[in-house]
């Protein structure tokens, strides 16, 4: 059992957890940040995606200890003062969900994609998103949401 300090959504959290416990488990079960989801435990479905220093990371597949020192952003950390990010707003506007269980991971993956590339082409989108599974099959709408959010990210969500 080790003491860790994790920087999550701009706040430091002291966590007492075994070094091998996954970041996902620590976020969900120690910090009660349940917006990040468990889907497969092997980095195959993307439901657990968070940002580490801005990059999309499968939180089920890295130990929490390896995330100490990084700036971690979860789905709970996107909305600022009641204002959704352009990506969140685009998912809402396109109705890009059914059951919504994959939505957090999808939004985090898109956020990372658009941070690095404001106008990704289709190949880049598929490359960045193919690790995220939606069993309800809302991929067409998620693609529309990505197109809607593209180019709006730096503008702080204006549309």
């Amino acid at each position: 059992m080790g003491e860790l300090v994790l920087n999550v959504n701009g706040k430091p959290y002291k966590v007492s957890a075994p070094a091998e416990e996954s970041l996902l488990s620590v976020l969900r079960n120690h910090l009660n940040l349940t917006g990040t989801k468990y889907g497969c435990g092997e980095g195959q479905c993307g439901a657990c995606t968070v940002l580490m220093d801005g990059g999309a990371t499968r939180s089920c597949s890295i130990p929490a200890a390896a995330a100490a020192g990084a700036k971690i952003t979860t789905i709970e950390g996107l909305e600022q003062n009641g204002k959704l990010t352009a990506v969140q707003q685009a998912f809402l506007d396109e109705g890009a969900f059914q059951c919504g269980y994959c939505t957090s991971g999808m939004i985090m993956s898109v956020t990372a994609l658009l941070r690095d590339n404001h106008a990704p082409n289709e190949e880049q989108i598929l490359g960045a998103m193919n690790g995220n599974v939606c069993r309800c099959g809302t991929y067409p709408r998620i693609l529309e949401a990505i197109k809607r959010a593209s180019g709006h990210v730096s503008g702080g969500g204006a549309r």
Partner: protein
Amino acid sequence: MRPHELRMLEREENYGSSAGDSPGSKSQLDRRDFLKFLGGGLLVCLTPLPSWSQESGRTFGSHELPTDIGAWLHIDADGRVKVFTGKVEVGQNIRTSLAQAVAEELRVPFESVAMVMGDTDLVPWDMGTFGSRTTPTMAPQLRSMAVAGRELLVEMAAQRWNTDPSKLIAAAGRVATSDGAKSLTYGELTRGEALVKSVAGDPPLTPATDWKIAGTPVPKANGRDFVTGKHQFPSDIVRPEMIFGAVLRPGSFNATLSSIDTSAAERMPNVKVVHEGEFTGVVADDPFAAERALKSIKAKWNVPDQQGNLGLFEYLKNNPDGKSEGPDHATDAVAQAIAGADVRLETQYTVEYIAHAPLEPRAAVAEWNNGKLTVWTGTQRPFGVRDELMQAFQLPADKVRVLHPDMGSGYGGKHTGEAAIEAARLSKAAGKPVKVVWTREEEFTWAYFRPAGLIEIKAGAHRDGTLVAWEHHNYNSGPAAIGTPYEAASKLIQYHPTKSPLRQGSYRGLAATANHFARESHMDALAHAAQMDPVAFRMKNLSNARLKAVLQAAADKFGWATAKSTPERGYGVACGTDKGGYVATCAEVAVDPTTKQVRIRRVVEAWECGAIVNPDGLRNQMQGAIVQAIGGALFERILFGNGRIQNPLFSKYRVPRFTDTPQIEIVLLDRKDLPSAGAGETGLVGLAPAVGNAIFAATGKRLRSMPMTPDDNKLPT
């Protein structure tokens, strides 16, 4: 689920037969107590029509309800409306569409209606959410109540103003005189009141042509909570003092325990090992510790030899289990008709077991308070899970409450309450609330599967394309949509229940997918054999105007008339009907000339299910159905042998991803003159045969087994 249980569910889902009585409760509801609990106002209870009796209500908390309550609706002093139903939201968007229907009839803004769903202490008894039945059966009940509520509010206003109710207008949550001189909100009318109205009968509903809220693309209720991570799914529930459980699984299906050593786990700090008969589980302060404790348990299992994939379809054919079902036609007549036909085709089709693989696996949080068990869990049947818990712990209905937070879907795969029972057992032993979340491997292994099946079809047609005989036998996969919509003078159609090597159960669309795959592939083969265009051949043998309309609509939108297949590009079509929905699907596939890989490039699907309640939600369902169907059509299959699942992970069991998704175009036919049917399931059934027919059109190769291209999307050699 045992095979006979599956068949019972299929019958219920197909024919809506009685589910029998919910146990427990006999005494009368004190409806005024219920109203007091809700803080006064107006409570409208629905006395159902006989055909709704299987969904009648039973318990309310510690109160007992009479059998005649189908649903209820409450209007409070602020004019807020709460609607109580046992249906659950699993992504099919009924939280939104049912609220639309109520808002429409009650004449209130959509935003003032809140749905209370799937909480067994608060809602009327309900068989469950499956079979595309919410829209055709629950929505009319809720609408009837809303009409009755509106009429009562108008009467209340008429009494206050001493005027004729027929001169008053209800709109936007108010009752007003026709000149607008007097007006009261619903809240003002119900304030200080404690009224209970029971509604019998069948009040006139607003025709779809006059709908203002129903029939419009209202966005998903609480949609914002899903993009912010605020929505709590069953696996997200946290209770004070809650600890975490994990359950020891047998070494295979049907294994028996030979020896077990839990001493290492018992030595771990803050870990408790729970043994109860065959059940062994652990609880710990965090799931990581519970998992570590579980892994430390040394168990040996006796594993019997069991049927696997190899020889599966012979096994199904040779292991009947119960009486065959189907219309009792003379086999000789069909055989003679086929013998006399110009074009004859006899072949067999197969479908493999597949997994629902909902992205949220089974999960439950259980707690015990003063002998009462409360469980939050993801299930399509909250009352079914309550029954399982009552049986497992020998409790009466009023000592078990099941709550259903809108879950990470089910697709027919969450009818049962395994995780709920496990959490409850561990919580009882630990004396604290316990959360159990199944791992992906557990969900792939210990849930149940869509049945595998063997389908044999013999058919004959005249040279002019007239279908004359049709014989269809389905072994194990199920009877849903087994009847052909095509006209044929001689028919023999039977479903043959068989033993199943794997636990099997409901799946979105049930056997309609397998039966449509076989039938529509066979019809396509007959069309080619008769040298007819596949659309023209179908049209010639159809009389059902609704099915013909979707077929024509899909063909037109797709550009069927000018779509000429080449060896690298194939076009295929399929159509069908089930559960009141009509679907036609056209598919374009590309076949790589060197790798022989198949890719679905474009799908056009036309759909009609009566009056459309929410066109945006419906379009979403149709798009999703097509994407989900791609998995079963092309690559999803469970590999198993000797009682073990060999591909119980997403790295080994391929599901549709972004790159599998074709361009999808949905054509919705809105029949405002027809009652609304459900749309959650039947949108799947056309995809596999349309794709198979397109592959045939390109390559001349007829693929008769689902999945058709399990090996990396390559055409089988």
